[in-house]
């Protein structure tokens, strides 16, 4: 039976975490009975760090006139992709910022050149970027998506969702697209045959009801389109961000910005698995939680370890860095008692690793 919003809010607030975890674990087992935990080998490529949005929770962006501003040239981009393929990678996660001078032709050009040169899946351009490109080019979202798809865009990451509640977005990222716009881009993308993931960044200034509102918005859209392949909750990392430097607002104590704790993370993760009964895959975020917590997450609703993240600039800019190889990930999954499998972007298993019982 489907959980309604009020029940979800009540569960999220007051159900014992271990009980919530047990229910999420059972829900995960029902969808993935084989005990396989997947991961993708990919590289996060940030084609630019220039961004007009200047989100207060972001430590990565630079203004166009900053000495640290960059746009990757083709040679560097290709080198990164070559390395990815050499390391067994099947996809690149291509994201950047809202650059004031890059329009549709830049993106279609970049996508075409990648596809000409390489056989690799391009998972790229989150909804804020797509809206920015559409506006820059004076085109509709639908036409823009169509053009990007034709040029080689295979799927869209769920970034920029943050919390799908405009009250929260007003504080966090006042210049970023509204919740309805994020959802509208995803809906059009799904209708155009472009699958996507969905994310949620929690642990900043939202309340419990905002988290449930977010889950509900994602579930409702998924009912209509079925285009989300996975849901990825991750926690706000306050290091080096404007929010952390200047506080949320005058008079709001700093402790309100303490990062979401592990207990909060598991609670959100478990609730995500339980509420999103129409999304098959829930990712553990080892990048923000570390490998040990990601292992624990596998018993609190998660069935996927996300990506090996050959390069991750954005979270690292906020002061979080866990150096991890594919082998570490395979071992971590095994040690948690699951069978590791490398997957493609659409969660098809492409390489199954031998399971090993957890040592002890």
């Amino acid at each position, binding site marked *: 039976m489907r959980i309604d919003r009020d029940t979800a809010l009540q569960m999220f607030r007051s159900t*014992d*975490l*271990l*009980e919530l*975890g*047990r229910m999420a*674990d059972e829900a995960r087992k029902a969808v993935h009975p084989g005990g396989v935990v997947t991961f993708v080998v990919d590289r996060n490529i940030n084609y630019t760090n220039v961004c007009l949005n200047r989100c207060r929770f972001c430590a990565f962006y630079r203004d166009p006139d900053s000495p640290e501003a960059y746009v990757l040239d083709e040679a560097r981009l290709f080198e990164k992709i070559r390395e990815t393929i050499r390391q067994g990678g099947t996809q690149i996660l291509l994201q950047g910022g809202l650059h004031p001078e890059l329009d549709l032709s830049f993106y279609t050009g970049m996508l075409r050149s990648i596809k000409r040169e390489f056989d690799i899946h391009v998972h790229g351009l989150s909804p804020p970027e797509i809206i920015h490109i559409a506006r820059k080019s004076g085109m509709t979202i639908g036409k823009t998506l169509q053009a990007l798809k034709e040029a080689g865009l295979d799927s869209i990451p769920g970034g920029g969702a943050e919390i799908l509640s405009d009250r929260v977005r007003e504080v966090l990222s006042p210049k970023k697209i509204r919740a309805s716009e994020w959802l509208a881009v995803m809906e059009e993308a799904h209708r155009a045959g472009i699958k996507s993931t969905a994310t949620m960044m929690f642990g900043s200034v939202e309340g419990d009801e905002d988290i449930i509102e977010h889950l509900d918005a994602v579930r409702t859209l998924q009912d209509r389109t079925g285009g989300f392949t996975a849901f990825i909750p991750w926690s706000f990392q306050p290091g080096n961000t404007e929010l952390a430097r200047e506080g949320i607002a005058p008079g709001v104590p700093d*402790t309100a910005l*303490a990062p979401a*704790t*592990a*207990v*909060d*993370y*598991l609670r959100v993760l478990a609730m995500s698995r339980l509420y999103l009964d129409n999304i098959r895959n829930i990712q553990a975020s080892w990048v923000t*939680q*570390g*490998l*040990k*917590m*990601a*292992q*624990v997450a*596998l*018993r609190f609703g998660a069935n996927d370890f996300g990506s090996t993240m050959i390069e991750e600039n954005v979270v690292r800019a906020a002061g979080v860095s*866990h150096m991890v190889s594919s082998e570490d990930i395979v*071992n*971590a999954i095994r*040690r*948690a*008692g699951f069978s590791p499998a490398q997957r493609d972007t659409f969660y098809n298993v492409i390489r199954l690793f031998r399971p090993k019982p*957890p*040592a*002890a």
Partner: protein
Amino acid sequence: MIETALKQKILAAERVSSEEAEVLFNDDDIHTLGELAAAVAERKNGRRAYFVLNRHVNPTNICINRCRFCAFSRSKGEEGAFELSVDEILEKMEDSPEGIREVHIVGGLHPDRPFEYYLRLLQALKGRFPGIHIKAFTAVEVDYLSRISGLGLSETLLSLKESGLDAMPGGGAEIFAEGVRRRLCPEKISAQRWLEVHRTAHLCGIRTNATMLYGHLESYADRVEHLLRLRELQDETGGFQAFIPLSYHPRNTDIGGLYPSGLDDLKTIAVSRIVLDNFDHIKAYWIMLGEKLSQVALLFGADDVDGTVIEERITHAAGAMTGEGLAKDQMIHLIRRAGKTPVERDAFYEAVKVHA
């Protein structure tokens, strides 16, 4: 699936057998295990979760033992070897933030420092910082001090106590199981000797902690044996304060291998809480587990996360991925978010301040 009879037994505060302890380790139902351990913890400590404002001091990393799982020790003259004088240690202490209640002192088995150095160190610390408890010297060090001083164990311990020693840490227990211990740390004192040092300390009125290093070469049965031997000694003396399972760190050691999983860490905390029914406290040592996992461990039977820990060096030498100190505010925040009441304690678990 943990059987109902076993569940009821645990909830009725009946003692579990070694077979039952193994069943708990081998069971896959981590959520129920956590709930059972949490119920035991609540019976012992209510909603309280403890932390201490403390610092570490390692007088030397020069050690004649050179255990294969240790990345901290050096031989005399080797690059990176260090030894601190009493004055240098006092200076370090002066630099500590205010409010410190406990200093944790452990170091290598130095080949030629005399027993008097250790007595002088304790006396100097007590003289200068009378309000700070000194928790110092593992059983391995105490055994060594008794050998270099030519005194018996009791005399050694009583001399240390008279000079200012308040309590002893639980290190050096590693894993008691004979075969594994021989492969892990052949130079180290035997399990029997470790237990004897602690028994003697308890008889001398010195309270101690106990540890278990897990996740390297041992089996679940070895872990159970370890816990049961501690439980037995505690029945006899009642001198243990806290049990601290130590999660193995493979980096820079001769044994190598993998980190135990986060699930294994939680399981070990939980089974320890259930089996050690005569221990008041189970510590989720955040330096070893990371602050995230330590916090989760508070829901799996732990009631203590150790301290703010200024200057931890031993675990960091073996690839600890944690920071080297946690601020008091962070500590309080983590505990609160786990739904517990943060209690700042001293070395004897007396409440210094309840942060309700």
